[in-house]
């Protein structure tokens, strides 16, 4: 009898636990999910519908505007696979050390009300970790 009641208590606790976990996950999925898009994918979407998004791409050497003495940059973000496709990004925070033309970046933000440019809240360059791809960038980066 005691063993049965133990099982019931464990079962109730498990239900409460899973209920709490489920609620937290559900609320997180509905409120904290953002589109992860490459530039070409973002261009193919209705910009008004995208809302908040995380975009992956490369910094174009053309039209890169970094104002001396001010934080941030305006630049064209080009698609990693289709360099012909790009969109304008405006970012007003501190630029990472490794930010430069050609580097892969991840920007998070939303399209401006007119949809003309992507206003980034955060900008991170890909971590120059030790694995393969970045070695090519490093080689190019050598003086």
């Amino acid at each position, binding site marked *: 009898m005691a063993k049965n009641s133990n099982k019931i208590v464990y079962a109730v606790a498990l239900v409460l636990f899973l209920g709490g976990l489920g609620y937290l996950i559900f609320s997180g999925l509905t409120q904290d999910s953002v589109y992860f898009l490459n530039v070409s994918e973002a261009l193919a979407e209705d910009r008004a519908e995208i809302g908040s998004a995380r975009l992956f791409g490369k910094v174009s050497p053309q039209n890169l505007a970094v104002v001396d003495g001010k934080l941030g940059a305006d630049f064209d973000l080009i698609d990693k696979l289709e360099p012909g496709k790009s969109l304008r990004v405006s970012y007003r925070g*501190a630029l990472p050390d490794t930010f430069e033309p050609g580097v892969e970046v991840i920007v998070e933000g939303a399209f401006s009300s007119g949809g003309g440019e992507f206003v980034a809240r955060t900008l991170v360059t890909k971590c120059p*970790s030790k694995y393969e791809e970045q070695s090519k960038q490093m080689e190019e980066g050598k003086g």
Partner: protein
Amino acid sequence: MHLTGYVGLLFSLLAFLSLAGFAGVAAWNRRESALPFVEKGQLIAAGGVLFSTVILLIGLTSRDYSFKYVYDNVDNALSFVYTLTALWGGREGSLLFWEVIIAVSGMVFVATPGYKSLASNTKLFFWMFFLAVQGFFLFLLTSWSNPFIEIIPAPHDGRGLNPLLRNPGMIFHPPLLFLGFALYTIPACAALASSIAGETKSWVTVARNWNILSWIFLTAGIVLGGWWSYMELGWGGYWAWDPVENASLIPWFAGTAVLHTAVIEKRRNALQRTNVFLMSLTFLLCIFSTYLTRSGVIDSLHTFGESGVAQPLFWSMVSWMVLTLLVVFLSERLTHRTLSDFLSRQGMLVIAAWFLLALGMVVTLGTMWPVISQLWTTKSLGLDANFYNRVCLPFMSFLVLIFCFCPWLGWKGGIRDKRGFIGVSAVLVISFVAFYLSGMTNVVAALTAAASTAAIVSIVLLFVFNPALRRGRHNFGVYGVHLGLVLMALGIAFSGPYKVEQEFVLAKGESAVIDGYTVTFTDLVQDGDVGDIKLRATATLEVYDDGRLIGIMLPEKRIYKNYERQQYAEVGTIPGLGDELYSTLLGLTEDDKASFKVSVNPLVNWVWIGGTLMCVIAFLLLRRMPRPGEGR
């Protein structure tokens, strides 16, 4: 040299696979006389891996750029220390490093009393699994991840190591993680082997030290990675919930859960199937971690690059999971014991394991969401850091709460010591109210901080009320590790939600105010030709609190000799056990102004102190296993 190194790996591959098959057949037919042959054979095969590793090390230290691996990871300007660390610095080398640790751990395990106490048939099954795992690693190393590729003609200089990786954190962070991952192979294989062979000796006891050591190294690797990203990478903190960061955390949750459920098996001989499953799952998740970081399945801040290992890693995970389920459900001789009261120490350990596994599941779900979401949408959906904070912080808070009360409960139920239970409850309520009223209005953060405070009091009271506890090294180990975790939770509760960060552009002599501190830019010194630094700008930031100078920060901007097109920042800090002031020199302008990112990080150092304590004190938990026939 290249061919010799490769042949060494190839020899080990064939030897391991043959021996694994031989051990399997012998175990199936209960031909225990085969055991000495397998044991000696694995030593010789492991020697092949060591031999090849030494060849790669010689290539690295002699800067032999005819090795593609050396060319990719070393250059003439690189210091000797970082030349050595390049062994685990590259993709192929890190896999070889992982394999060589497994090989050496096998050589050590065979000589331990724990191994010797196992039945012969269990040992044969152990080798079947263990050598097959090594065979798999060598299969990758001799195909997609070959570190012995030759370049003809050999270049005169290599590509070298990125300056961001020239940091002490980077010397130790990767090998510690790989040590953790690799050492989990022993307990996982021992669990499966014991289960399939119906071993009477508890694998939980036999593999206890290995399990703890794996956990220590994995924990240390994760904590050090956080410190490195905080001090060097400037990602805006110590944890960004990036897929690669998450990859190391997921097996940690499972590994920590099994440490708790293993206690129940040892004390009550229950949860046997659960433990075998969790132990094997932990190892599987180590492979999953590698899959996440090297398959390119998830786009991450890190550029690991696809390397062709995705498919073999994926299928190895599927195979291991099928194998685990078969072993867990088909194994015999497992006793079934019901658990004690829910409100017992045992019950709380089970709940703690639930929480840890749930956290692991949440992080996995969040990390894989861009892939999962593609099942119903063409646009890949991902989750930002808020998702993890929303789900993980309350769970972490409850975990600390469980720890506050767990030690005061009896093993089978009831409150063991009412004084402690009531005292801790009172501290919890009072500290929660105090934190909340003092401005900590984030309820989850206030609850975590209050639970951490109550947990610290709980540990102190335990040692005050129970003199017997003070006599056991093991008790200091158990409660010391938890104290470390609690201090870490306290640091996270404050430094996460209450970090203040601002960016300023200042001329010399100008000041800015952040969170009550006045930061004055007083000087900028430029020098160069220091070691491998070509040019360096060092800013002086004086920090005042209520008009009193509390310290000076010296953030730097550097240009390294071999990387002249890029600038690298070194942060300046005023360390403190309360607020830590932290600054980065972002850039200089032609009109002699400088831009800075300054942040006030409350209690952030408790994250490092707690993390270090967890890893160091856990060594006290290691126990010498009695030799067979030796009394305790």
